[in-house]
C-alpha cells in the first residue's frame, strides 16, 4: 500500500504532536533540575538562551545522605525482590510447560491461581500485612518490602517464563531425559540457558515494577528502609514544594525503569497481557 503525500504529512503531524507530548515531562524535569528557585515560575524553557543553568541542585541532591540512602534501599529491595520473584516464577513457568497436571488442579487452574494474585488490588491486603509486619518486627526494614514486592510480581515471572519455555522445541527436553538427566538438571542446564534473554527481560520488568512501587513503600517504611519514590513524594515540605528537587529526583528515579522498559519491550507485551497477546 502506498501512502499519498498529504496522508503522510497528516500522520507525521499527529505522531509528532504525540511524540512531543510523551517526551515533554522528561524535558521539563531536566529544565527544572538546572534552575535556581527564583527561576522556577518564570516562563523560560530553554537553558543558556533564556536562563543560566546551574548544577547546584544536582550537587546538593547527590550529596544528601537521605537520597543516597534511599538509592541504596531501592537497589537492595528491587534486586532481591527480583531474584526471589523470578526464581519462584520461573520454577512454576517451567513446570506448567513440561508437566501435565491431572486431578483437581490442572495446568490452567494452577496458572490462574497465580494470576489472580496480580489482579488483587494491593490496598486490600495493606492493613493485615501492616500488622503482620509489625508483629514480625519487620516494619521499616527492607525485608518487609522485599517480601511484599516479590509476592506481587511472581505472576509476571510465571507468565513470561511460561511463554518463553513454550517457545522452546519440546524435543530438547525429551533428548535430555533420554540422556538420563533429572528434571533439576534439565531445568538448570537446558531450559534456563536457552531462555536467558527472556530471563533478563523478565528481571528488568520486575525490577522496574518494584523500583516504582509506592503504596507499600510509603506504608511500611518510615526512615531506615525508605525508597526513592517515597523520597520523591517527600519533596513537599512545610514551606511548599521544592520544584527544583522534583526535577533532579524524578530524573534520578525514572532513568533506570525507562531504559529497562525500552530494552524489554517484546516480552513486556506478553507479560502485561498474561500471554494473551504475543509481542
Amino acid at each position, binding site marked *: 500500500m502506498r501512502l499519498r503525500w498529504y496522508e503522510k504529512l497528516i500522520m507525521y503531524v499527529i*505522531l509528532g504532536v504525540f511524540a512531543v507530548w510523551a517526551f515533554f*515531562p522528561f524535558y521539563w524535569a531536566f529544565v527544572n533540575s538546572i534552575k535556581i528557585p527564583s527561576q522556577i515560575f518564570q516562563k523560560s524553557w530553554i537553558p543558556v538562551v533564556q536562563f543560566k543553568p546551574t548544577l547546584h541542585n544536582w550537587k546538593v541532591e547527590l550529596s544528601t545522605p537521605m537520597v543516597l540512602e534511599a538509592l541504596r534501599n531501592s537497589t537492595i529491595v528491587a534486586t532481591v525482590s527480583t531474584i526471589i520473584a523470578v526464581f519462584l516464577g520461573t520454577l512454576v513457568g517451567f513446570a506448567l510447560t513440561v508437566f501435565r497436571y491431572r486431578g483437581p488442579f490442572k495446568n490452567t487452574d494452577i496458572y490462574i491461581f497465580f*494470576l489472580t494474585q496480580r489482579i488483587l488490588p494491593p490496598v*486490600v491486603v495493606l492493613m493485615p500485612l501492616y500488622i503482620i509486619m509489625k508483629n514480625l518486627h519487620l516494619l521499616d526494614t527492607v525485608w518487609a518490602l522485599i517480601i511484599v514486592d516479590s509476592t506481587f510480581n511472581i505472576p509476571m515471572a510465571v507468565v513470561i517464563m511460561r511463554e518463553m519455555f513454550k517457545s522452546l522445541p519440546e524435543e530438547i527436553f525429551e533428548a535430555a531425559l533420554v540422556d538420563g538427566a*533429572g528434571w533439576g538438571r534439565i531445568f538448570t542446564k537446558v531450559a534456563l540457558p536457552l531462555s536467558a534473554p527472556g530471563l533478563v527481560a523478565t528481571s528488568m520488568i520486575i525490577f522496574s515494577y518494584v523500583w*516504582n512501587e509506592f503504596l507499600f513503600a510509603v506504608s511500611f517504611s518510615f526512615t531506615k528502609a525508605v525508597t526513592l519514590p517515597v523520597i520523591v*513524594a517527600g519533596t513537599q515540605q512545610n514551606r511548599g514544594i521544592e520544584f527544583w528537587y522534583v526535577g533532579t529526583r524524578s530524573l534520578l528515579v525514572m532513568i533506570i525503569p525507562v531504559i529497562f522498559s525500552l530494552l524489554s519491550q517484546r516480552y513486556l507485551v506478553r507479560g502485561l497481557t498474561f500471554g494473551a*497477546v504475543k509481542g
Partner: protein
Amino acid sequence: MKRNSAKVLFVLPTALWILVFTAYPLGYLFYLSFHRFRFGRIIGFAGFRNFERFFTDDNVFNSVIVTLIIISVAIATEVFLGLILAWLVDKPLRMNKFFRVIFSLPLFATPVAVAFLFITIYYEEGGPMNSILGLFGIPPVPWLSNPFWAKMSVAVVDIWQWTPFCFIVFLAGFQSIPQELYEAAYLDTKSRWQILKSVSFPLILPIFTIVLILRIMEAIKIFDIPAVLTIGGPGRATEVYSLFTYRTGLKYFNLGYASAMGVVLLLVEIPLIMFIVKRLRKVIS
C-alpha cells in the same frame, strides 16, 4: 528427580509463598474488619459496626464515584489513542521505529515522579500546559484548583502513563496480522475503509477486549498519582478509593475501618476476577 516428585517440587515453594503472604493476610483482613483498632492496638470487638459506618459514610460513596469517573475517562482515552497511534505506526513510514521508542518512554516512568512533575506542568499562573494551550487561543484551565478539572488532571497523567501500554499491545496485534491478508483485501476492494472494516478491525477486536479488561483491572488500583498530584483535593474531588483506604488505615490508624473497606473492595472485585479468569481460560487453552 522423578517426574512425580518434580511435578510437586517445582510448584510447591511458589504456591506456599503465595499462600503465606496473600491467603493468610486475606484471612486476617476479615478478622481485623470486625474489630476496633485505636491507640495503636485492637481495643475491642466491633461486630458489624465498621461495615455499618462504611455504608453510611458519605466519604466512601464519594471515593467510589471519584474513582469511577477518573478511570473511565482515562481508560476510554488511553484505549482510543493507543489504537490510533498503533495503527499509524504500523505503516511503512520512515520514522516508525523512532516513534515507537518515544511513545514507549512513559511506560515505566515512576508514577510518583510523574505526578510531581505534572504539578509544575499544570501550574496555573503561567505553567507550560496553559502556556501551550494559550498559543492556540485556549483560555487558562484551572487544572488543580477546580474540582472537575482536578479529576481530569489525574486522568491526563494516567493517560500519559498508560497510553503507551495500549499502544504497544495494539501494535503487536497489528503486526501479527499477516501482510498477505492486506494484499488480498487490497486487490479485492481497493477501499482503505473497507480493509479497515473487514480485515484490521475483526482481527484486532479480541485484543481490544483484553486491553480493556487489563486496563480496568490495573486502573482500579489507582493510588500514586492522586496521592501526590492533588493529595485527593480540592476537597475530596480526587480522593480515590485506595487513597481513602490508605488514609483511614495508615494516617488515622483506624485499621479496623480500613480493613472493612478492603473487605468490601475484595467482594466487589470477585465477579470481575471471575470474568477475567473466564476470558483468560479461553485464551490460554
